[in-house]
């Protein structure tokens, strides 16, 4: 018998059987056997195949498009060009056509499309479309694009509609958005500082590389009824953006998402669906399918914005940061998409988990003629934490303080305020515990005897680096979701949620939350996997690491509602007071007379008395949850309460570097996250390791490379590498801290994005500690380490001009000057001496 008399009360932690256990994934069998269907596996009657004509130029005027030969090809059902389509797209700034009309703005942009009976016919038809371009010199370097005389990627920016509450585009420039944060008095802060250190850090665009490329099938039937099957993270956003762009009522559009082969943010919004819908309509309502090739995934579909991050820090010699001025130049590519929001979300998070009394942030989203940036795991945080955590390391070294001690001195503690003025409490999470645990996991500050021996034997230097991180979900302040729990006639339960299973394990975790709330075995709760906007209740998007809290809470409420309905009927049946009832996995019973009971099965779809009278009805629990107490950010000062929760974390990296060649090996990564409550340890570990390895990829081998004309030189795996199994560090460790999130389900908060954040600077810091090589750019290839070791000019390698190219022509080539104002005479420094952390 349970000790909890009230069905709405949550179980004691010591009694939990579903939550905190590594249950197998609910959808794993289909994935293991090949039965699980992804969008590309679907074949519909009458389905046509689509192919896209793409621009080979980064910037051009389209002078003419001749589709006549394509249209005459037998088997072609529809050919489309931009001018036929009077629709505009854009999540936050409506700046994009479905197909380029007069202007091509990036390499790989779609200029025409075909739907045909077969892939071969569609490909042939695309070849037969003749496009005449007037090629224009592209603007590729964001630091050039931001200048007043730069050619404009969007000359008509002033006429675009946009979300005014959140964004500030600057018409007549290439600036799609400016976000500003103003906290305290920056001048006073700098005047208090004994040292002022200013550096700049950069990273290129990278691709999400889901194994399953973008794919969709769309059918636009008579009566303007549209069905969309798509590999997407956010079916309701697909529907709403689609309807907004195509000017249709929501009820006429249905979005179905089967299994998804990875998203990582690249599938967060809307991509192929509008084009396919228009092809379908023109083809008389036949369903039209397009699966992006891998090369199209790299250039037609969006990527992650590149970033140049300049940080100026004022610090006292006791290690306290007094002021920090942060300027972010986001290279968003040709369209604003999510990039303006990445800018905004990064803006309020830009200082990291540190207490900085006086802070300014100026963040710019800059248009350039390149494939554009969309949401990507971390939503800007992987990019800016590279700079921030390298900077913290360098500041510590300049003032002669151990980097761990320096971080500890400045990390947020209960009572401190964030950049937006939010007060941190002891329930927010424990960044210090995370950093401490990461440091211990790698024996930071010393080499073990084995490491000493290894270093002596091999001649390679071993270094250890740390980096912290934090992130709150980047989402509207009123984000909401709902869950529906339906009881089957055998007493089992089906849970409907629109939080989409994309591999992150949310279906299993939410199922465990449901089972725990119901006090049912996990196997008695089915979480429906395929999402259908006609059937699932609304969820905003599967992004931002907010699913566990919002959908988890909604699920708890739905299950409590389900139980309450069951109890109400049971009270009648058992002729008992509600407060005298309790339940187990099978039945509701009278606490003081347990033999008086009624099974859930008997109640599930309506209870029938022996004489045939029926009462009650199908038990359907509904839970809805909206983020509570959040507020908009003031557009001038950035003050407000945007954060649903903060997940803090830290990485420790041990690296071994060949001082002669720059080659390096990651010996160990240990990552620690304060997740409040671990719902499924194995799934959390899987997210951590997956994120760490994706972080390693972005740190050492990923990045878009363009030539001076803006052609993407590495649009495939040949030259856009991602980690393989051989690239795993020798040891990889995941650690959880559980500082309960008071308003999270069982105390949980999300961790989906976080494992990737700050891996790169931890590695950069470790390399620095091993050899003194200062790396300011990502990725850190062996050659980059070699160059840094020899103080040779770095190669940005984003825009090559054989042999060297720099995307920042206003900075001198060569090692960046260390600007230090005031402070004692700089002495040459060895690797920092470890001191005990504060």
């Amino acid at each position, binding site marked *: 018998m349970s000790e909890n008399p009230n069905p709405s009360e949550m179980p004691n932690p010591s009694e939990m059987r579903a939550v905190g256990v590594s249950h197998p994934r609910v959808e794993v069998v289909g994935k293991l056997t090949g039965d699980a269907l992804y969008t590309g596996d679907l074949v519909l009657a009458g389905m046509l195949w689509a192919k896209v004509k793409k621009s080979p130029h980064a910037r051009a005027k389209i002078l003419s498009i001749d589709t006549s030969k394509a249209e005459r090809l037998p088997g072609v059902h529809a050919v489309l060009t931009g001018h036929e389509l009077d629709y505009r797209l854009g999540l936050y700034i409506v700046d994009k056509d479905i197909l380029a009309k007069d202007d091509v703005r990036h390499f790989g942009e779609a200029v025409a499309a075909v739907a045909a009976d077969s892939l071969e016919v569609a490909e042939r038809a695309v070849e037969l479309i003749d496009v005449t371009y007037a090629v224009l010199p592209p603007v590729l370097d964001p630091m050039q694009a931001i200048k007043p005389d730069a050619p404009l990627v969007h000359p008509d920016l002033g006429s675009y509609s946009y979300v005014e509450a959140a964004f500030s585009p600057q018409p007549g420039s290439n600036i799609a958005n400016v976000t500003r944060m103003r906290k305290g008095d920056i001048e006073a802060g700098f005047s208090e500082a004994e040292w002022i250190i200013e550096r700049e850090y950069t990273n290129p665009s990278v691709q999400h590389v889901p194994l399953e490329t973008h794919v969709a099938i769309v059918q636009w039937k008579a009566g303007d009824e549209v069905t969309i099957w798509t590999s997407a993270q956010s079916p309701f956003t697909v529907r709403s953006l689609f309807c907004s762009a195509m000017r249709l009522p929501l009820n006429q559009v249905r979005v179905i998402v089967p299994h998804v082969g990875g998203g990582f943010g690249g599938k967060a919004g809307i991509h192929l669906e509008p084009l396919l819908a228009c092809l379908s309509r023109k083809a008389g309502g036949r369903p039209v399918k397009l699966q992006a090739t891998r090369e199209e995934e790299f250039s037609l579909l969006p990527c992650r914005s590149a970033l140049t991050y300049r940080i100026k820090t004022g610090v006292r010699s006791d290690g306290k940061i007094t002021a920090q001025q942060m300027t972010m130049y986001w290279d968003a590519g040709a369209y604003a998409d999510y990039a303006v929001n990445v800018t905004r979300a990064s803006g309020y998070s830009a200082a990291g988990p540190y207490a900085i009394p006086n802070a300014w942030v100026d963040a710019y989203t800059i248009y350039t003629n390149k494939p554009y940036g969309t949401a990507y795991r971390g939503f800007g945080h992987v990019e800016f934490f590279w700079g921030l955590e390298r900077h913290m390391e360098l500041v510590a070294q300049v003032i002669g303080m151990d980097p761990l001690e320096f971080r500890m001195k400045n990390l947020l503690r209960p009572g401190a305020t964030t950049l937006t003025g939010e007060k941190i409490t002891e329930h927010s999470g424990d960044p210090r515990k995370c950093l401490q645990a990461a440091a211990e996991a790698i024996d930071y500050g010393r080499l073990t005897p084995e490491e000493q021996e290894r270093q002596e034997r091999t001649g390679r230097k071993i270094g250890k680096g740390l980096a912290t991180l934090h992130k709150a979900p980047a989402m509207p302040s009123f984000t909401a979701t709902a869950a529906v729990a339906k009881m089957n006639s055998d007493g089992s339960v089906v849970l409907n949620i629109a939080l989409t299973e994309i591999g992150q394990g949310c279906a299993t975790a939410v199922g465990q939350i449901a089972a725990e709330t119901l006090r049912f075995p996990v196997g008695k709760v089915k979480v429906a996997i395929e999402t259908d906007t006609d059937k699932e209740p609304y969820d905003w998007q599967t992004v931002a690491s907010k699913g566990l809290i919002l959908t988890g809470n909604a699920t708890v409420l739905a299950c409590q509602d389900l139980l309450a309905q069951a109890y109400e009927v049971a009270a009648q049946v058992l002729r008992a007071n509600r407060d005298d009832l309790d339940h187990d996995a099978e039945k509701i019973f009278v606490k003081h007379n347990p033999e008086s009971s009624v099974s859930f099965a008997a109640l599930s779809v309506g209870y029938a008395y022996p004489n045939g009278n029926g009462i009650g009805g199908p038990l359907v629990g509904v839970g809805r949850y909206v983020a509570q107490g959040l507020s908009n950010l003031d557009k001038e000062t950035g003050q407000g309460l945007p954060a649903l929760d903060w997940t803090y974390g830290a990485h420790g990296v041990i690296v071994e570097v060949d001082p002669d060649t720059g080659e390096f090996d990651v010996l160990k990564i240990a990552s620690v996250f304060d997740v409040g409550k671990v719902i499924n340890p194995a799934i959390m570990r899987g997210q951590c390791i997956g994120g760490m390895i994706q972080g390693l990829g972005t740190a050492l081998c990923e990045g878009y490379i363009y030539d001076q004309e803006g052609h993407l030189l590495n649009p495939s795996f040949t*030259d856009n590498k991602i980690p*393989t199994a051989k690239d795993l560090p020798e040891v990889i460790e995941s650690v959880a801290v559980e500082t309960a999130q008071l308003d999270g389900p069982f105390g949980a908060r999300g961790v989906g994005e976080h494992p990737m954040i700050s891996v790169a600077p931890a590695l950069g810091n470790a390399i620095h500690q091993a050899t003194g090589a200062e790396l300011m750019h990502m990725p850190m290839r062996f050659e980059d380490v070699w160059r840094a070791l020899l103080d040779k000019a770095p190669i940005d390698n984003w825009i090559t001009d054989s042999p060297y190219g720099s995307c920042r022509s206003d900075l001198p080539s060569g090692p960046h000057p260390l600007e230090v104002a005031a402070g004692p005479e700089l002495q040459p420094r060895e690797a920092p001496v470890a001191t005990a952390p504060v």
Partner: protein
Amino acid sequence: MTDIFKYRSPVLRAELLGILADHGEDARVLAGGTDLLVDVRNGFARPKVVVDLKRVEGFSDVSWSQAEGLIIRPAVTINDILQHAKVRDSYPLLVACAQDLASHQIRNRATVVGNVVNASPCADMAPALLCLGARAVISSRAGHRVVPFKDFFTGVKQTVLRPGEILEEIIVPPETATARGSYRKLKRIKGHDLGIVGVAAMKKDGLLRLGISSCAPTPLLVEGLSEADPVEVAVTAAQLAIHPISDLRCSREYREHMVGVFVRRVLQEVA
């Protein structure tokens, strides 16, 4: 971008050579497919006829004799070489080059012959064949000719092969059986990757040869060295022989530096 082509898979050698003679540049030979089918998909190759040579009798053979040496026929895969007892026993350099070529799945299909006929500057098997003094037996309907591998490569992805010709045999002479050898290539990741710089070294009977990939339009052979030479002599010779470019993978300077590093490493392994 895939053109429609006809597929032929002759079982008779004469038929294979006849098809190639008749179709000239319209025909492409299919061995492992790991280069050709990628090129076809990307539109770099647009054959009208694809001629699969794998069913031709004897084309999958690897044979060895004291008299002739090791003979590798056109359909012999990289994994075939890696698993062949005589190769493992007597040709460590071939094993070293083969084992880091792409991935296991690719090695099950890619052929030794195909790797050198494709003639990428990065071709992993080329340094071994150059060091081992291998010869190419080139056949057509008109007859055959023999070309030493050091004369086989003429430019980036270019060889002495003419339309209608196939590389029918790679002969590794018996003199270099049991030569000691090793190959190391610099990659961007630890996983499968083409070589940024590749260095093979072979030592036998006082002779030292180096084979270098990814540092010139063709794979290079560095001769005239002896086992007794100090390492730095070999390093200098290698650095004089190469003329690398800077490209999106690597700069010329780093390639020059790493050739020296790899020569030293490989020579240490072949001590």
